[in-house]
């Protein structure tokens, strides 16, 4: 299984400003001084191998959308944030306009998780088939409502793909697109659902927009079991722990610290920090990643958790 991130930002999409681009260019040019980078090949090698990630790349600004590339023919996604626009366009450019089968697992229906769908071009093309799964009883209404006046000029009915909505029951296992899928209720305004997705012994947990108050040991235990032995846990780490349990308590998000602890308790193999705070620039997210890796290192017992920070374009092979 290959996990590909198309949107990783929390709450609202963001874009780098001119000042941020200039800041990166200045840092790169200073680092390159005297290096004789007089060909594109030398410059590319320098950028890829020697510059820090926060200088040579960006974590990106699209809101939540993660693709699970399985060994089957269907396309599997988690959430339809603004990242799905890029996914849809890439797919049309490389695999043609129709004949596609999509399965989408929705964590919840807040705008940053559904806003990409009106810009998902395959949904407008006949011959495609989209099934949107979720546990909320307003699943279909949320999508239809955002695709009509006064919110959007093109009505949902103009989407010519076959589009279905399927309600799932939390804590029940389903076989969908060759995957074993189980949803779990999470703490978030209006409720959100994490998904534990398994195929041929590989396990991905998609757990975003989830607050872990840690005031109920049974709840902690249930999440540890949900994460148990996962190859990858995609985890909402929007806030610092201090913020999450003080000024931003009950805002529905979690922290890198809790992510590390839960993955350690669950003996998960990889933790991927996700749903990045929109006010964080690339340097800040890179620092968050470095600190989280350090935390994992100094609190490690007999099990190592590999720590990643999601970025738009990241691929993790399981």
């Amino acid at each position, binding site marked *: 299984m290959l996990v590909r991130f198309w949107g990783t930002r929390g709450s609202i999409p963001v874009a780098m400003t001119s000042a941020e681009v200039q800041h990166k260019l200045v840092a790169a040019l200073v680092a390159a001084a005297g290096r004789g980078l007089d060909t594109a090949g030398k410059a590319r090698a320098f950028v890829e191998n020697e510059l820090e990630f926060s200088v040579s790349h960006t974590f990106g600004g699209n809101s939540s959308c993660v693709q699970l590339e399985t060994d089957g023919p269907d396309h599997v996604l988690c959430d339809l944030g603004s990242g799905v626009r890029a996914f849809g366009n890439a797919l049309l450019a490389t695999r043609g306009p129709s004949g596609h089968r999509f399965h989408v697992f929705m964590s919840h229906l807040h705008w940053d998780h559904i806003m990409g769908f009106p810009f998902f071009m395959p949904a407008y093309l006949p011959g495609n088939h989209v099934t949107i799964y979720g546990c909320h009883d307003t699943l279909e209404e949320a999508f239809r409502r955002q695709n009509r006046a006064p919110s959007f000029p093109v009505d949902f009915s103009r989407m010519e793909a076959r589009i279905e909505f399927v309600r799932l029951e939390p804590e029940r296992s389903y076989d969908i697109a060759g995957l074993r899928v189980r949803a779990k209720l999470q703490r978030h305004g209006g409720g959100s659902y994490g998904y534990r997705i398994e195929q041929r012994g590989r396990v991905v947990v998609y757990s975003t927009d989830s607050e872990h108050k840690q*005031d109920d040991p049974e709840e902690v235990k249930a999440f540890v079991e949900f994460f148990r032995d996962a190859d990858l846990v995609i985890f909402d780490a929007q806030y*610092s722990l*201090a*913020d999450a*349990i*003080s000024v931003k308590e009950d805002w529905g998000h979690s*922290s890198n610290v809790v992510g590390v602890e839960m993955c350690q308790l669950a003996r998960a193999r990889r933790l991927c920090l996700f749903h990045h705070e929109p006010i964080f620039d690339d340097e800040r997210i890179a620092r968050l990643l470095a600190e989280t890796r350090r*935390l994992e290192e*100094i*609190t490690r017992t007999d099990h190592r958790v590999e720590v990643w920070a999601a970025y738009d374009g990241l691929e993790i092979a399981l």
Partner: protein
Amino acid sequence: MELAAKRFADTVALFPVGRIDHATADAFKAALAPHLAGVAAGGDRAVIDLAGVEYISSVGLRVLMLASKQVKAQGGALAVADLQPVVREIFEISRFNLVLEVFPTLREALGKLSPAALAAFESA
């Protein structure tokens, strides 16, 4: 959980020992509770000396946050001091160093909270 207490004039210093994690956080909270009741405006101040704590998890930090909130609501003052290097890093990574008053030593904490407590500490 073992939680020794020592009074320095109007300030109570508390000395937890060991790991404060999922297994021990409730015991830590319970041990802390009787000492916090009197930490209020016109009453005691409190310092939690973490020199004996080798690890604190998010659940343990939550206990400190709740203690801080309680004391603030009572108009009192609470500080932590003397963090071991690992615990200090955990405070920094979790940003608890920004929401709690953290001092390098018990002496410095007492000096900030109460001159009388510092004098009592120096003469002890």
